[in-house]
């Protein structure tokens, strides 16, 4: 745990709390964009540059635009209060969720351990050894995404297409114009 990691993780949790607690929806969306940017930096720290690029373009970019379009088409409720009133039931349920997840913490391998199950898995070793001469791509993530698991990526494209068609069905032409 380096100081940089500690600062970025603290920023991410702080931005998530701001997103949850700010009453103004526009302020919450801006906090969420900052949160996505922080998460993109976390992906870089964890050596996942492909995920970081996607998060910065899609999470901080496209998603924020979608939220802004939604409040432009609907309403941004005005309020005097800066923060939301915390609902005790929801707080209890989510605290219970965090506590239940927390009990599993000591059973998990330390982050970054080279003996962790994912790092020592035969699947990981196979992809890293064979990705270049089987798929001809030097980025192992691309090789898995587009070659080994190409049909899954086709399925992903089908989901995106279905989502787009669903959106066109839900919104009539009046809203899109």
């Amino acid at each position, binding site marked *: 745990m380096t100081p940089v990691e500690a600062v970025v993780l603290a920023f991410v949790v702080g931005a998530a709390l701001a997103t949850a607690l700010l009453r103004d929806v526009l302020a919450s*969306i801006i906090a969420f964009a900052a949160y996505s940017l922080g998460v993109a930096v976390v992906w870089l720290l964890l050596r996942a540059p492909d995920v970081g690029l996607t998060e910065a373009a899609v999470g901080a970019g496209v998603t924020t635009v979608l*939220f802004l379009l939604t409040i432009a088409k609907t309403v941004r409720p005005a309020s005097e209060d800066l923060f939301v009133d915390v609902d005790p039931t929801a707080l209890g349920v989510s605290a219970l*969720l965090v506590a239940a997840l927390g009990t599993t913490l000591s059973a998990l391998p330390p982050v970054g351990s080279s003996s962790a199950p994912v790092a020592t898995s035969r699947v990981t070793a196979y992809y890293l050894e064979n990705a270049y001469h089987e798929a001809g791509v030097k980025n192992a993530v691309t090789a898995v995404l587009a070659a080994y698991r190409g049909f899954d990526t086709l399925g992903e494209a089908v989901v995106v297409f279905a989502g787009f068609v669903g959106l066109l069905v839900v919104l009539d032409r009046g809203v899109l114009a």
Partner: protein
Amino acid sequence: MIDVVLDRAYFVVAFLLLGIGAHMLIGDRNLVKKVIGMNVFQTGIFLFLIASAYVAGASAPLLTEPGPYVSPLPHVLILTAIVVGVSLTAVALGLIVRIYGEYGTLRADLVGEVDGGE
């Protein structure tokens, strides 16, 4: 005890994000903020998986770099999940725009009231 938590700080943050996202989904009355909460919840899951792929001192899974490498498979899963998540968000927000057109409000409790009055 402290070491157990510090070694697994990424998992702790992932759990906290799941809690914050769940709280927004359940507790916030504004429908747009519920969808933002769903996105926060998703990133909590992403953080858990990407952190489990990390190996200290290893390079990104680009085979031009010197090894050892972190595992590429969770990265692929999360790339797919991010794109699917955006489709989900887009459809949810489209439904919210329609709900606002029909009911004239974005508050989940008021939408229920309008429905019950009919």
